[in-house]
C-alpha cells in the first residue's frame, strides 16, 4: 500500500519534524563553512550524515534505526574517531618542534629570519587603495625621515611629487594623495594576511609594514630553494637539507633549524618503548606497582565500604541517617581539593599527621611510606562509593536464607560468609572490575599527591609511586616538551593492557556466577 506524499507528511509526528529540522539546520550551518575551508572530506561526511538522518526519519519504515542511528553517529564521533586519531598520531613525530606542516614550517623559518637592514631608517607609512573598497590592490605611501615621499607596490618604489600629496605636519605621514584613497588604521588592520605577506622589493631587500603607520627595510637571512628542497643561510652560506622532519646542516656539523614539521615515523614510537633504556628500564617496576596499587585500592575501599555497610545494616544501629551522611562526606568533596589537602597533611615537618601523632614519618619522602600515603588517601576518596554499593546490595540479600541459616545454628560469621558475602560479591563484581580499571589509570591521585615521588636518585622519569599513566605522562610531556606521537603510542599500549585485564576479569566473574548459581 502506497501513501500519497501529503498523507505521508500528515503522518509525521512533531518530534520527528523538529528533529529533521535540526538536521537540516546542521547541514545549512556546517556545509558552507566547510566549503569555505576547502575541507572536502568534511563536506562529504556532513552530506552523508544529513542524508542518512533525513532518510531514516522521513520514511515510514526503519523504525528501529530511528533510535539507533543518532547513538551510532555520536559513538562514531566521540569514541571511534578519537581512538582512530590517537592510533594514527602514534605513527607520527607530532609534538613540540614538529607541530606544523612542512609548508608552514618553511614559511615560518623564512619569516623568522627577516632582519632589519643595519642603519636603515624607518618610513612613515600610509596604505592606500584605488577605491574606498579595501578588497582591491593596495600600495604603500612611504615618507622617509627627510620628508621625501615614495610610492611602493609589488614592482618596487616610485617617487611621488610633493604636489600630489598632503602630509601630517609633525610626522610627515601622507594624509591625502591624488587619485588614491588612504586607509584608516582599522582598515589597514583589516587587510590581515594580505598585508602580512605584502612587501615592496628594493635592491637588496624589501620594505614591510610594522604596526599601523610604520615601515622598515629588511631582508631574509634564510632562503628556501623549492627545487632542491634546501634552506640556505645567506650570512654563513650554510646549506640545510631536510632529514627526519627538520632541516639539518649539510656540512655535518649537526646543526638543525629550530622549526620542524610533522611526518610519519612508522613504528618508531612503539619500538622506542622497547629499545629506549630510559623507558624500558623502569617499565616493569612501574607495571608491578600499578597492578598492586589498583588491586590494593579496590580491596581496601571495598573492605572498608562493606564493613561500614554491614555495621549500618545492623538492626540495632541508631542514627543511621546521620552516620551515613557523614560517611558520604569524602564523596561530596571534589577529589582534586581533598587530594591536595591530604598532600599538605603528609608534610614531614609541618603536616597535620605528624603533628597530631607526634611522629616524624617522612610520609612523602620514603618509598614505602609514600606508597602507603597514596593508598590511604585513595581509601579515603573511594570507600564512600563502595559503602553506597554494599549498602544497596545488602538489601538484596534474601532475609529467609539468613533466618534459615540461623535456625540451623550457624554463627553470625558463618551466615555472613556463606549467605551475605556471595550475594554481595556477585552483585559487586562488575563494579569491582570497573573500579580496578579506573584505579589502573587513576592519574589524579598520583599526580596531585606525590607526583610519582619520591624519585630514587638518578631517575627523573619514574618515581616510586608512579603508575603507568603518570609515568607515561611524564615521558610524553616532561623531558623534551610535548611528544604527542610517543604519548599516543604508549596510551594505545595501556588501552590494550587494560582491555586484556578487564576481559579476563569479566570472564572470571561469569565463572564465579556459575559456581554460585549451582
Amino acid at each position: 500500500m502506497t501513501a500519497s506524499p501529503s498523507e505521508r507528511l500528515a503522518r509525521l509526528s512533531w518530534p520527528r519534524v523538529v528533529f529533521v529540522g535540526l538536521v537540516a539546520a546542521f547541514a545549512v550551518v556546517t556545509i558552507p563553512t566547510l566549503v569555505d575551508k576547502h575541507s572536502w572530506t568534511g563536506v562529504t561526511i556532513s552530506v552523508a550524515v544529513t542524508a542518512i538522518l533525513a532518510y531514516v526519519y522521513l520514511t515510514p519504515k526503519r523504525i528501529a534505526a530511528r533510535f539507533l542511528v543518532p547513538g551510532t553517529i555520536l559513538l562514531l564521533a566521540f569514541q571511534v574517531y578519537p581512538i582512530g586519531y590517537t592510533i594514527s598520531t602514534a605513527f607520527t613525530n607530532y609534538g613540540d618542534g614538529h607541530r606544523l606542516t612542512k609548508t608552514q614550517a618553511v614559511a615560518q623559518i623564512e619569516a623568522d629570519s627577516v632582519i632589519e637592514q643595519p642603519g636603515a631608517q624607518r618610513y612613515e607609512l600610509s596604505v592606500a587603495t584605488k577605491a574606498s573598497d579595501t578588497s582591491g590592490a593596495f600600495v604603500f605611501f612611504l615618507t622617509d625621515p627627510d620628508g621625501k615621499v615614495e610610492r611602493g607596490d609589488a614592482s618596487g618604489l616610485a617617487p611621488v611629487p610633493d604636489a600630489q600629496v598632503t602630509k601630517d605636519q609633525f610626522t610627515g605621514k601622507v594624509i591625502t594623495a591624488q587619485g588614491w584613497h588612504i586607509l584608516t588604521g582599522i582598515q589597514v588592520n583589516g587587510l590581515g594576511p594580505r598585508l602580512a605577506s605584502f612587501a615592496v622589493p628594493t635592491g637588496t631587500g624589501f620594505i614591510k609594514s610594522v604596526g599601523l603607520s610604520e615601515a622598515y627595510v629588511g631582508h631574509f637571512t634564510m632562503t628556501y630553494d623549492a627545487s632542491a628542497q634546501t634552506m640556505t643561510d645567506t650570512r654563513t652560506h650554510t646549506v640545510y637539507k631536510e632529514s627526519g622532519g627538520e632541516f639539518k646542516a649539510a656540512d655535518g656539523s649537526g646543526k638543525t633549524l629550530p622549526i620542524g614539521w610533522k611526518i610519519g615515523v612508522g613504528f618508531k614510537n612503539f619500538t622506542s618503548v622497547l629499545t629506549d633504556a630510559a623507558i624500558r628500564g623502569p617499565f616493569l617496576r612501574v607495571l608491578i606497582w600499578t597492578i598492586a596499587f589498583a588491586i590494593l585500592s579496590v580491596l581496601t575501599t571495598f573492605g572498608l565500604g562493606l564493613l561500614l555497610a554491614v555495621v549500618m545494616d545492623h538492626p540495632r544501629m541508631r542514627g543511621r541517617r546521620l552516620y551515613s551522611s557523614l560517611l558520604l562526606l569524602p564523596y561530596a568533596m571534589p577529589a582534586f581539593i581533598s587530594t591536595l589537602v591530604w598532600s599538605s597533611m603528609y608534610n614531614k615537618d609541618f603536616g597535620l599527621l605528624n603533628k597530631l601523632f607526634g611522629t616524624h614519618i617522612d610520609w612523602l619522602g620514603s618509598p614505602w611510606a609514600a606508597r602507603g600515603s597514596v593508598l590511604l588517601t585513595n581509601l579515603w576518596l573511594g570507600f564512600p562509593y563502595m559503602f553506597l554499593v554494599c549498602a544497596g546490595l545488602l538489601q538484596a540479600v534474601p532475609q529467609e536464607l539468613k533466618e534459615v541459616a540461623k535456625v540451623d545454628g550457624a554463627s553470625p560469621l558463618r551466615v555472613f560468609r556463606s549467605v551475605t558475602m556471595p550475594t554481595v560479591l556477585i552483585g559487586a563484581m562488575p563494579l569491582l572490575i570497573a573500579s580496578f580499571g579506573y584505579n589502573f589509570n587513576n592519574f589524579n591521585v598520583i599526580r596531585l599527591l606525590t607526583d610519582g615521588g619520591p624519585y630514587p636518585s638518578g631517575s627523573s622519569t619514574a618515581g616510586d609511586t608512579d603508575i603507568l599513566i603518570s609515568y607515561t605522562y611524564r615521558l610524553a610531556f616532561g623531558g623534551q616538551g610535548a611528544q604527542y606521537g610517543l604519548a599516543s603510542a604508549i596510551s594505545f599500549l595501556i588501552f590494550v593492557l587494560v582491555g586484556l585485564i578487564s576481559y579476563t576479569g569479566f570472564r572470571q566473574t561469569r565463572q564465579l556466577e556459575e559456581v554460585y548459581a549451582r
Partner: protein
Amino acid sequence: MIWTDAQRAPVLQQFAQSFAAANGISVSVQPVATDLQSAYVTATAAGKGPDIVVGATDWIGNLVQNGAISPLPLTAAQKGSFQTTALNAVTYNGQVYGVPYATENLALITNTAEAAANPATFETMVADGQAAVKAGKASEALAMQIGQQGDPYTAQPLLGSAGGFIFGTKADGSYDPSQVGVDNAGSKAFAAQLAKYGEKGQNVFKRSIDANNAVSLFTSGKTPYLISGPWALDQIRKANLKYSISAVPGFAGMGPSQPFVGVQAFYVSAKAKNTAIAQEFTLNYLTKKDVEEALYKVDPRAPALTDAYNDVSKTDPDIAAFQAAAAHGVVLPQIPAMSAVWGPLGIAEAAIVGGADPNTSMADAATQIKAAIAKG
C-alpha cells in the same frame, strides 16, 4: 585579543581599553588560569589563538620551534631603551621576539626583628638563623623552597656561587645546549654543600619546605630568612613585619650568588588575525614609560624599560634591592633544551638533600639531561 595569566588580566584590561578607545577598536583580555603556554601553542596551531600572549621569556624557545610567535622589529632606539638583561632575555637566535615589561630574580629577604640583614656569606646566614632558632625566635633557620622534586630555579643562586652552571655559552653569549655543566667541579662543590646543609647534615635545607609553604613560614615569623622573588612582595608587605632585601649570600671562599634573571614579555602571535594592531600595541604603546610604570603599580616587579625603572626604584627601595641582588645574575635560558633540565636536576637536588650521594646524583642528572637533549 590578548591572553594572559589570571593575575595580570584586570590590569591589562585597563591599558587595552585606553588603547582600544584611542584606535576605535575593541580589545578583549582573556585570563587563562592553568598552563597558559601549552594552551596557547595548541590554540595557535588550530588557528584559534589570541593576537598577543603574555609570558616569561623561558617560553621563547618552545614558542619559536612551534612557529607560534614571530619576531618583533623593534627600532634601534627602542632596543636601547630597555635594560640590557631584559633585551637579552627576549632575544633568541639573534632575533627579538617579545616586548619585555618586567624583570624578576631571587633575593634574600630577612626578618630584621629576628636576624641580621645582608649576611656576608651563606655560612654566617645559617649561623644567624640557627641562633634565632635556638633563642626561640624562630623554628627554621632558612626558608628555601625545595620540595620532594627539588627546585633548580631557587637553587641557581647557590649553584652559581659554587661555580656550577647548567649550560655553557657560545661566543655570542647565547646558551649552548651541547655544553652541560651540571657535573662540573663547581656543580659538585654545590652538591657537597647541599649534603652538608641537608636533612642528614645540619638540616637547613628541607624537602618539606616547598612552593606552598616557604613564603608563609616567613610571613608567620617562623624563619628569619627567605629566598624568594618579587612575586612574594605582596604577601610580605601584608604581613606587616620589618624586612630587608639583599642579595642571596654566596658560600664562603666561593663566588657571589648568580640568580636567574627572568623577564615577563608580550609576544605577537605568528598567526595573529590583527597583526598590524597587535604590533602597534606592543611596539608603540607598551614601550611607553607610563604604561610600564602603571604595570609595575599592580604587579610590583622591576620595569624592563630603563627610564621607568629609574623612576620606580626612586620611590620603591625594594625594587632597587631586588635589582641589586641580581648584580651577578644570569639570563634564564630560553633554549628548548632547558625543559630537559628541570626534572633531573631537581630530583638530584631533592635526593642529595634527603641524604643521597652528592657526586653520583649530579653525575646521574647530567647523564639524563645529555641523553634527553641528544634524543631531542
